[in-house]
């Protein structure tokens, strides 16, 4: 019997920036598996749906994948709000879903403990924000922070959790300011930030707005440490923000130069196959799809419920993200915890600080 | 000189005009009379290029002008004063008048002169020169349409019921203006419901009935209104 898996990703609309990158990682994982002979002696077949970053479209896409294409597992999706809507359908049909980039902890929190149908192979927003908060205070020595966050589930959950963690360990958040997805002009917000002269600015949002904030902060003479959330781990950001990105710190789960051996190998092969550097998105996609394929193989049959059981029991499966020897040890809510790293831009290149 | 050779025209599939044949000699003035809905305006619109003839030829001073589009007709010196007091509502009265001179826009002094001439003919317009034309009264609009046409210094003028909506005194003044224009050698085609005015002015009278000329003849002392009445009023046209 052929293994059929589904993918739901935003391939058009504003979120497609990440979606296309994730898709490459996913396709790479499938290609690799099929080169090694596939599963159940057949090639793995993948059905890709564009959810446009819209919940209704996402629900339809997932129904289509399950009902029409008969997939038994789904990798998706990137936008947290869409993932939340889709996960309900997946649960109803007993088809496991593995996040392809959606960070908000709320989605895994909604799982029934011990019986999760939505998995995330990397730490959720809560853990990420906690790590960033402690890194900002301890590693970067910033006692006061202004938070700029995108008004989306992703940005807001990170910002809220950052604030409570950061203040919990003795830091002070001097400002919390939301911006709308896609905003490009931050002069007025940054003018306020400058007036409060915090020792750091934390940005919880996507790469394009992040690059603008960094660049414009430079132009306005805001001289503070800037820290960004995981989506800003991108070479493009450095290119767009220009010299202002020097010293920018970003929380990062994957770098091409990762000390994680499994990740380094993925990076090498990906580079050879696509002639470009992988980024955190391709790594997420790669892990997400890799897990589904492995779960099916272990289950011995293409069956969603069996795969879900296997997923809960894969502490030996290596992930390309995180520090060395990170594995897919899902907790009873379907989330994986590992230490999130911090990278700093030096001479136009990100350098990963050692994990503590 | 304007020559029309067996013109057919209409709107979409509906044919309105059937084989209109006539000429207006240079400097002449012909009148088209007829009941409501017989096709008078359609005839003028066809000549002005707003309605495409489906058959026939239109020649102005020997050159074919049909099928070229209304703006080309205007450039060729043919100018229509449409029925229905159409104005450029959002533009001021002054701009409405000026735009009439569009196809001779290089002639700045001439235009300035003509604007004054129009204001002299229609003092009511001068009083309202700044107002948006859309706010004018019916009669004021009619004056504006005429003023705009005068600005074009046309060689051929098509007038569609110029006296409608005007006060009796102004109707008289319009007659005077038409006479003045004739004296300058302008060729004119006049559609009127004011029969006495038409008969005062025209050299030749055509009566249109259901899209065809029912009667055409030279005007003169021997032309009797009773005779006209028979063709024109005929059997109660609507």
């Amino acid at each position, binding site marked *: 019997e052929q293994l059929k898996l589904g993918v739901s990703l935003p*391939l*058009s609309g504003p979120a497609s920036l990440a979606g296309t990158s994730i898709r490459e990682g996913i396709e790479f994982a499938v290609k690799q598996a099929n080169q090694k002979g596939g599963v159940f002696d057949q090639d793995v077949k993948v059905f*890709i*749906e*564009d959810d446009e*970053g*819209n*919940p*209704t479209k996402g*629900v*339809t896409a997932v*129904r*289509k994948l*399950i*009902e*029409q294409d008969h997939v038994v597992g789904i990798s998706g999706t990137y936008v*947290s*709000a869409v993932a*939340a*809507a889709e996960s*309900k359908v997946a649960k109803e049909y007993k088809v496991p879903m593995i996040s392809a980039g959606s960070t908000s902890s*709320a989605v895994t929190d909604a799982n029934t403990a011990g019986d999760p149908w939505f998995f995330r192979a990397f730490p959720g927003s809560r853990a990420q924000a906690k790590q960033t908060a402690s890194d900002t205070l301890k590693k970067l020595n910033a006692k006061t922070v202004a938070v700029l966050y995108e*008004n*989306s*589930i992703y940005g*807001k959950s990170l910002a809220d959790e950052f604030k409570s963690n950061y203040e919990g360990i003795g830091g002070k958040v001097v400002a919390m300011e*939301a911006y709308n997805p896609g905003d490009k002009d931050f002069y007025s917000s940054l003018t306020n930030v400058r007036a409060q002269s915090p020792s750091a600015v934390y940005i919880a949002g996507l790469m394009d707005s992040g690059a603008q904030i960094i660049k414009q902060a430079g132009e306005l003479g805001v001289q503070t440490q800037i820290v960004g959330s995981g989506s800003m781990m991108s070479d493009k950001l450095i290119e767009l923000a220009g010299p202002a990105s020097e010293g920018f710190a970003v929380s990062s789960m994957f770098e091409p130069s990762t000390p994680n051996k499994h990740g380094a190998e993925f990076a090498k092969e990906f580079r050879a196959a696509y002639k470009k550097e992988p980024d955190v998105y391709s790594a997420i996609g790669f892990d997400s799809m890799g897990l589904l394929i492995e779960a099916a193989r272990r289950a011995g049959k293409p069956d969603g419920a069996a795969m879900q059981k296997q997923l809960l029991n894969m502490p030996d499966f290596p992930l390309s993200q995180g520090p060395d020897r990170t594995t897919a040890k899902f907790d009873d809510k379907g989330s994986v915890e590992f230490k999130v790293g911090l990278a700093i831009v030096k001479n136009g290149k990100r350098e990963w600080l050692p994990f503590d | 000189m304007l020559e029309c050779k067996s013109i057919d025209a209409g709107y979409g599939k509906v044919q309105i005009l059937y084989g209109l044949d006539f000429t207006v000699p240079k400097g002449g003035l012909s009148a088209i009379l007829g009941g409501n809905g017989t096709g008078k305006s359609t005839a003028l619109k066809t000549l002005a290029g707003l309605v495409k003839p489906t058959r026939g030829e239109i020649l102005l001073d020997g050159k074919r002008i049909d099928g070229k589009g209304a703006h080309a007709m205007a450039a060729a010196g043919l100018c229509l004063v449409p029925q229905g007091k159409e104005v450029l509502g959002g533009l001021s009265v002054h701009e409405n008048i000026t735009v009439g001179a569009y196809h001779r826009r290089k002639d700045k002094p001439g235009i300035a002169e003509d604007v004054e001439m129009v204001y002299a003919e229609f003092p009511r317009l001068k009083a309202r020169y700044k107002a948006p034309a859309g706010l004018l009264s019916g009669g004021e609009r009619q004056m504006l349409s005429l003023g705009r046409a005068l600005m074009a210094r046309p060689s051929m003028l098509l007038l569609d019921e110029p006296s409608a909506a005007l006060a009796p005194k102004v109707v008289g003044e319009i007659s005077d203006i038409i006479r003045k224009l004739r004296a300058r050698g302008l060729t004119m085609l006049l559609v009127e419901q004011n029969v006495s005015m038409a008969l005062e002015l025209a050299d030749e009278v055509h009566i249109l009935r259901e899209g065809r000329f029912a009667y055409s003849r030279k005007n003169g002392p021997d032309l009797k209104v009773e005779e006209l009445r028979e063709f024109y009023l005929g059997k109660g046209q609507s």
Partner: protein
Amino acid sequence: MRAIFLILVAAATLAIVSTVFGGGYAINIAIVVCIYVILASSLDIVMGWTGLFSFAHAAFLGIGAYTAAILGRDFGTTFWLNLPLGMIVAGLFGFLLGLPLLRAQGHFLAIMTIAFQTIVYLVLSQWTDFTGGQYGIEVEPVAGFTTLSSYFYLVLVIAVICLIAIRFLTQSRLGDALQAIRDDETLARTIGMNTKAVKLVALAISSAFAGGAGVLLAYHIRGVTPDDYTVLASASIVAMVVLGGRGRFWGPVLGAVLLTALPEMLSILTDYKHIFYGGVLILVTMFAPQGLAGKFSRWRAR
């Protein structure tokens, strides 16, 4: 009467095609189709019949959906209460929007509806305490209609009722009045019509139907999130009405079916579906200027 018969035939066909020949995915699409049919037909009341170009219909959809979600969350009310309440609240907002709209004309009016739509969207996405912000609010399925196909029948029946009501409305004196307003409002007033009241009523009714559709949508996707209620969504409802044919009963219905089903059919082309979708919109407007319904009736007339 023939129209009502046709509505029933169409509904039965949809039911058979989606449940017998298709699976859950087809039923899913059929539900969305029904919801959009209500939306497009109700928008046509103000757009086709009255000539008010409204880009705020998705806002009313959202108001209905959020009313149901919030009532359910805070008061535990059920679908059967939320549906009428959602309609009433949306209708009320339609009425309120109507007040400043009364004097505006044409493009000005369209821009005001866009402004309203944007405000509603921003409120839904930013008033986190009340609307749940980007997280939205979860909605429990309708008791007794928890399976997809049973919910589909529920939606189908409601859609049929809405369509018949809209048919009756536009055939009644209100339809005449709306057409008169579209053609010449001043004239309508001088022949004795209270055009302001008629416009307000039309807007309120149209918004109420949209609100009802919103309630159905909320229960369908089992939750509300602001991104379903954007100006883009409004624009696509407008597109449905225009493509199908304005001011004709079957126009918006056809438009809604086509534009909801088309992207699904195009999804085989994954990467190119939007390009095709855009192209189809252009081509259809070029070749069926009176909308598809206009094309059909002309074709039948031959």
